[in-house]
């Protein structure tokens, strides 16, 4: 049965994982996402659905547990925050290189280094450009509400399995900690049959299954790289998700994802009250990036302002998509500071309405 609850974003992710029929969660505590592991432990998912939940000795161990479980064809999820996500990068590269599906949640905090425990969006590059070594991509979903935190877990598994690719939910400490109403989906049963490539034990009716990212033959390794690149091109053709607000007649376009997009919705209203025709494009998938709509909108507006809780990372992808058609500027706050809707309108004015 669907259920309406008041929950923190982190709790919604945890509950959504159980309801999505996840087989396992492996994680290691780090603020601001520890509620995910805490909620799961309190819920006893082993009794509810048989789901395995294990606190690993490190993020490195956790992501390699994800590898092991995913290679058995299971739905496996892990979560962490920025420093912990950095530790997971080697594992993520192996997961991508072995074409395994999994969901990884990054509840971003400010960096670099130990940084701060406050929200930030400074892990964009790491999330959308691969993150670890080698030519690979994660599918990246950016929720802007507690509802989407929950919904993107199930969607995440669906896309990860469809493409045999790791998927990241890129969110931040604000969305993780904030409480909102959330509709939770009905309990999905856990899978009973597993993909044919999974290491479930070699039976006489099939060849053995090997999960590896190693190929010492250069020609084969190049072929493999081309194969996964084709997969990414397919994602770019078929999986782009975005939302627009008041873009029909917009003269100035804000581009923002996640928490920043949520704030920008208010900024659009404030700007319009002042007579500035502002609109908003919110990428929902950060990889694949909504290049086409950006290119279209670039032909119609007088200026684009990206708003990110970072020194400006997504702005580079916006500029690439826009190809110089229009001026693109960036406004951002760092270190855990969340910009106010008014700050953003001011920034719009300073950049374009001097």
């Amino acid at each position, binding site marked *: 049965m669907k259920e309406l609850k008041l929950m923190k974003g982190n709790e919604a992710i945890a509950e959504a994982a159980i309801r999505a029929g996840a*087989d*396992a969660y*492996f994680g290691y505590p780090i603020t601001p996402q520890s509620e995910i592991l805490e909620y799961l432990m309190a819920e006893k998912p082993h009794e509810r659905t048989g789901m*395995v939940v*294990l606190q*690993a*000795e*490190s993020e*490195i*161990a*956790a992501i*390699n*547990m*994800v*590898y*092991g*479980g995913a*290679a*058995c064809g*299971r739905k*496996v999820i892990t979560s962490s925050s920025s420093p912990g996500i950095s530790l997971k990068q*080697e*594992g993520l590269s*192996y997961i991508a290189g*072995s074409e395994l599906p999994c969901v990884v949640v990054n509840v971003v905090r400010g960096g670099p280094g130990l940084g701060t425990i406050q929200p930030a969006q400074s892990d964009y590059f790491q999330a959308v450009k691969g993150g670890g070594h080698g030519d690979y991509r994660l599918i990246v979903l950016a929720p802007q509400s507690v509802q989407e935190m929950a919904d993107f877990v199930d969607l995440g598994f669906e896309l990860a399995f469809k493409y045999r690719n790791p998927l990241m939910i890129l969110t931040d400490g604000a969305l993780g900690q904030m409480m909102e109403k959330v509709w939770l989906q009905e309990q999905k049963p856990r899978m009973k049959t597993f993909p044919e490539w999974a*290491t*479930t*034990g*070699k*039976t*006489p009716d099939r060849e*053995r*299954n*090997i*999960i*590896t*990212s*190693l190929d010492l033959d250069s020609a084969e390794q190049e072929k493999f790289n081309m194969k996964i690149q084709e997969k990414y091109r397919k994602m770019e053709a078929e999986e782009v998700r975005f939302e627009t607000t008041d873009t029909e007649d917009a003269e100035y376009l804000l581009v923002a994802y996640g928490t920043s997009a949520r704030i920008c919705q208010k900024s659009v209203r404030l700007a319009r009250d002042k007579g500035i025709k502002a609109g908003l494009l919110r990428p929902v998938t950060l990889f694949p990036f909504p290049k086409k709509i950006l290119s279209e909108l670039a032909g119609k507006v007088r200026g684009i302002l990206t708003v990110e809780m970072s020194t400006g990372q997504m702005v580079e992808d916006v500029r690439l998509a826009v190809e110089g058609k229009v001026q693109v500027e960036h406004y951002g706050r760092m270190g855990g500071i969340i910009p106010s809707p008014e700050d953003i309108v001011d920034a719009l004015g300073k950049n374009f309405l001097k």
Partner: protein
Amino acid sequence: MVENTGISDIVKDENLVYQKTKVLTDKVMHYCPGCGHGTAHRLIAEVIEEMDIQAGTIGVTPVGCAVLMYNYLDIDMQEAAHGRAPAVATAIKRLMPDKYVFTYQGDGDLAAIGTAETIHACNRGENIAVFFINNGIYGMTGGQMAPTTLSGMKSSTSPYGRDVQMMGNPLKMTELVAQLPGTWYVTRQAVHTPASVRKAKKAIRQAFENQKLKKGLSLVEIVSNCNSGWKMSPVEANKWMVENMFPFYPPGDIKLEGKMVGKE
């Protein structure tokens, strides 16, 4: 005129004295002649055949000379990142508790980069088998110093011999994990003589059988040679191993049925 005879004309049931287990593929192994890895692979494969658990076994290969073990064993296998095999195996076993799960790891993999994963899998008492090939060196990358390299032993990164003041002491990982409550069976074996091969096989079998009990982790160390890394002939390497490795890494059982041997 001599007639053409095929292998099937010679190999008949009545004159067959030895046969490669079917769990080993026909792929020619890439190991240096005389290396212990090949023998250790064969023993694991034979045990899987004898226990009739080919469909019930998932193996995890390391990063090291044995990285391609999946080419040689006809079972489902996963290739783990360097040192992370115990974490990978943990998930496999937790998700499929009725399967037999093992890792196969070198000393660099298990006792250096993967120290945390090894200790914590042991300490959680994961119901898996860990086969630990200790050749005192990084074979795959060309003979660099390993955590297990003996004091005074030469390697490409300790060319004048391991100076423990400067480079630290050799690590007895097997004795260390035997102290942990999660380990059920800890033993040290070798595969350099027919007698030691028979004993090592028994230990490997025990490590698989133990998984039925669900009482904890079984670790079988196999002290092995690396004639390429040690820059010796296979015969010299085995002799050197007995004279130098065995005094520091003595073969024998360390923990049986959850109890330290010789300590009641």
